[in-house]
């Protein structure tokens, strides 16, 4: 039974959410639009469309280097962050140990810290120890902020993990490795995958940490910022669109992967049922 009052508030909730989403995506459409404008300075309505800025951007060697830098940093951050966060999330959520509550609080601190200040602090640290800033230091800086986020994302999955399944597997005579491969890993996989997705994409889009810690190896957000502040070129909306499309591709691919894995698991289950 639905009361009319409740129905009305549900419709309002939908309308408000739709409006919020529209507002959130509006600037992205403006960026895409600007990337196809022929004029050097964007005006609306657009007088003539052209792909020349796209051609120019895709041919630019500077842009190639910058995209490579961003990819290199994001991949390295993902690999390291998943490893650290997987262990961390088990310590965070799965096991009870004496320092756990303190560990939880320490772990969230970098998330609750302004990134520009963290970036500058790291720059100071590298300087004090005579480490030259490059893509390597940027990876480290990203990790300080991203590994805790990935840990939280994975911890949510770990909280829902039913440990008695592991016990049952041991009782049925499984070895440690078997239990890990057949029980623990498949059950925690969705969390690991989201953790990896967050790590990659947060690193891909990060600006404040890269700005101070990547030295001469500029990333996409850094390059965009420098051109926005001084020396605007229509390559800015083009590269902005490329960066957005890159993130969207990875995001969708990860969603597709989850669906495939679920299908595969269901398929295996039904085959096992059939052989019984």
């Amino acid at each position: 039974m639905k009361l009319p009052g409740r129905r009305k508030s549900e419709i309002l909730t939908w309308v408000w959410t739709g409006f919020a989403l529209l507002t959130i995506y509006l600037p992205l459409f403006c960026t895409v639009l600007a990337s196809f404008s022929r004029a050097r300075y964007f005006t609306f309505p657009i007088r003539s469309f052209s792909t020349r800025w796209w051609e120019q951007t895709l041919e630019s060697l500077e842009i190639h280097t910058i995209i490579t830098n961003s990819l290199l940093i994001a991949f390295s951050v993902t690999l390291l962050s998943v490893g650290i966060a997987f262990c961390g999330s088990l310590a965070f959520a799965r096991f009870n140990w004496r320092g756990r509550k303190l560990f939880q609080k320490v772990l969230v601190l970098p998330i609750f810290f302004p990134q520009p200040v963290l970036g500058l602090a790291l720059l100071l640290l590298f300087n004090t120890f005579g480490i030259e800033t490059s893509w390597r230091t940027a990876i480290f800086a990203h990790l300080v902020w991203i590994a805790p986020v990935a840990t939280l994302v994975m911890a949510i999955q770990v909280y829902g993990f039913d440990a008695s399944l592991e016990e049952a597997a041991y009782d049925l005579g499984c070895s440690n490795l078997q239990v890990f491969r057949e029980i623990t890993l498949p059950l925690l996989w969705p969390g690991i995958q989201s953790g990896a997705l967050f790590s990659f994409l947060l690193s891909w889009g990060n600006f404040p940490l890269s700005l101070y810690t990547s030295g001469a190896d500029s990333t996409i957000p850094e390059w965009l910022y420098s051109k926005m502040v001084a020396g605007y070129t229509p390559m800015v909306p083009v590269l902005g669109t490329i960066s957005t499309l890159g993130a969207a591709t990875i995001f969708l691919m990860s969603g597709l992967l989850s669906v495939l894995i679920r299908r595969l698991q269901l398929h295996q289950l039904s085959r096992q049922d059939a052989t019984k």
Partner: protein
Amino acid sequence: MTTALPSLLENRGKASLSPALLAIPSLVLLGVGFFLPLCVILLYSFATPRSFELLRSFTLVNYSELIRAENSIWRSFIWSNGLALATCCLLFLFTYPIAHGLCRVFGHWAGLVTNLFIFPLFISENVRLHGWVLFFIKGGVLNGTIEALGWQGGLEVLYQPGMILAGMIYTHFPFMLFPVTLGLAMVPRDLCDAAADLGANRWQIWREVELPIALPGILVGMLLTFVLAFGALTEARILGGQSVIVIAHDVEHAFTYAQNWPLGSALSVLLTLWIGGLVMAIFSKVDLDRILGKKEI
């Protein structure tokens, strides 16, 4: 479940893997990448102004420089706090209905809506804020549309404090939405129904049942948005022109253009203390296990 596990693991011969060991990679990372830089900053803040050497001198000049009235740092501090507070309160109002929708109304659409709100997190705030510049700028999408419709254009919205606030609300949207959603997800539906059966009206249900149970999530969301907006820099740069100097700008200025690392460090120490105090105060009242969904056993 959790109390039985360690002893159980010992029986299985897996005892070599103590749970505390699993925390070590994270702790090493944060030790070197978070606490050590803070220590370096603390040491620098006592160094002679404009010097680049640690532990050669000890002075409090940098701190007294900060509180001198001629420096406009107190003004930036007030601006940043005001903007952050406004961001945090408005975001709470804006995201609450959506969080409610995600928990109660959207049903099987909730997953899609959640993903649509997550995705913008992965696009650099530069790109998104610059999209707003293209929208609001003279001859941009908004003014172009207004003029095309035959009305008087020339609206000036950019480069004002209000625009910075809008930008902050915009970039920090998910940071409020998801904690509040996690908080609201902790409210059992039966409890609200029971309260309604007992004759409570919607306002009473919200105040007496929903709000107290969801409060930890709401607090975390407010803290997160406040802290992040307090330290935000790009909104003021890209959307605000130079109309407001935020505190992160002062820090950056001291470190880069002014080449006064000790002053920048002293300011960073003050910011860290201010933020650290807030975080500690809130987290003493919040249990992370409950918000993130640990089962009660």
